[in-house]
């Protein structure tokens, strides 16, 4: 073998080794990619699995019961504003539907700033006012809440008893006026009963009211409305819709702006 041939063969060998090494590197890369990709997919899959499993566990408590008892005049599962409380009826006038949580500080602020105008628009027959209760703050504050858990839900159920007694708006305003400074502190059952007196429920009607609150008669109605709030993905409280179109907070909380918006919506 000549020296020339020997050199050529060495070069060939080196090239072959390089090609082999590169192929090996490519195989390694592919393995890394496939395994890495699968691991990341598995992580995402595990997240979804955990979520679905967790949802299944809690689903039964979140069910809407269509047959639930509702307070006098309150909407049932059917119609446009299920489980809502129509404060008045004004044919052919725009509908203002307001989602509120009794423990929501901004709701109390809006009620304080503009509650009078909102109710006057209803009593003057300029709007159909519908209050829609929710109770999401119960869960939001559950880790920090003290002696009165589930206050939003219980206050709503007690409100239902007051609606039966014909004092719906009065009771509603009383609860908001007596909202504790610290969100989540809520009210005791005794306070919710006393609010009935403040709202002007007296005599035999008060006894009926008290036993209704103590029996938690409208618990399921309150929960139905809360679950509807979740199902409809309502963005917090207060959220108001005038003929289905969202009214921003600066309008809802301002007398002049709200009156103007109602005029614009009235044909």
């Amino acid at each position, binding site marked *: 073998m000549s020296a020339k041939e020997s050199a050529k063969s060495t070069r060939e060998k080196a090239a072959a080794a390089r090609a082999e090494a590169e192929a090996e590197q490519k195989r390694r890369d592919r393995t890394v990619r496939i395994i*890495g990709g699968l691991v990341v*997919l598995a*992580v995402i899959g595990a997240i979804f699995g955990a*979520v679905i499993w967790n949802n299944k566990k809690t689903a039964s408590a979140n069910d809407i019961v269509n047959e639930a008892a509702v307070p006098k005049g309150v909407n049932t599962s059917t119609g446009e504003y299920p489980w809502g409380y129509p404060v008045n009826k004004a044919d052919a006038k725009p509908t203002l539907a307001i989602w509120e949580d009794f423990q929501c500080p901004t709701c109390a602020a809006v009620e304080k700033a503009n509650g009078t105008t909102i109710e006057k628009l209803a009593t003057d027959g300029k709007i159909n006012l519908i209050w829609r209760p929710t109770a999401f703050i119960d869960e939001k504050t559950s880790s920090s809440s003290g002696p009165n858990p589930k206050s939003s839900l219980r206050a709503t159920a007690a409100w239902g008893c007051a609606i039966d007694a014909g004092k719906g708006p009065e009771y509603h305003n009383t609860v908001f006026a007596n909202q504790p400074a610290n969100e989540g502190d809520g009210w005791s059952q005794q306070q919710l009963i006393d609010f009935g007196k403040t709202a002007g429920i007296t005599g035999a009607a008060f006894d009926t009211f008290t036993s209704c609150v103590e029996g938690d008669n409208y618990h399921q109605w309150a929960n139905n409305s809360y679950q509807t709030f979740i199902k409809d*993905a309502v*963005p*917090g409280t207060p959220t108001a819709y005038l003929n289905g179109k*969202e009214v*921003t907070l*600066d309008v809802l909380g301002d007398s002049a702006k709200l009156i103007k918006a109602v005029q614009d919506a009235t044909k």
Partner: protein
Amino acid sequence: MSAQTRTWISTVFRLVLAGVWLYAGGIKLLQPGGAREAVIAYRIFPASWVDFLGWALPAVEVGLGALLLIGLFTRAAAIASALLFTAFIIGISSVWIRGYSIDCGCFGGGGDITESGKTWRYTSELLRDALFTGMACWLAWWPHTKFALDRIPAEVVDAAQEPLPST
């Protein structure tokens, strides 16, 4: 700028973005409903989507964070990151323009909040997301980094080498 410097800058960006995604996604996964409340506040998606998006969004964020952390599919993860940050910028601008005052829910939380400090809040969120978008674009352009499972192609390694002393 030498290829070596670029590689180091890309490495820093990759790890920063990995940290951002893992933190942002992780904190959302620990909340009830995931990012559901935040998604709702944007008033962009219909009610039937928010349960899915509430979990899908943090899951995707954690997935991107994991890929960037180990440096696998770096370019694809960087492009996806840039697109997701751009989507967030559009989302925040859109709620701002429509007059709502929300917690962006970027790192947990979400929902409507008071108007106070709204301008600065939205401005700083947009600037922050723009900065992250810039980092993701850089990484998509120069995806070769240190400590990555992605292999650096030979030509990039060669370019980064000191020139050999001439003989």
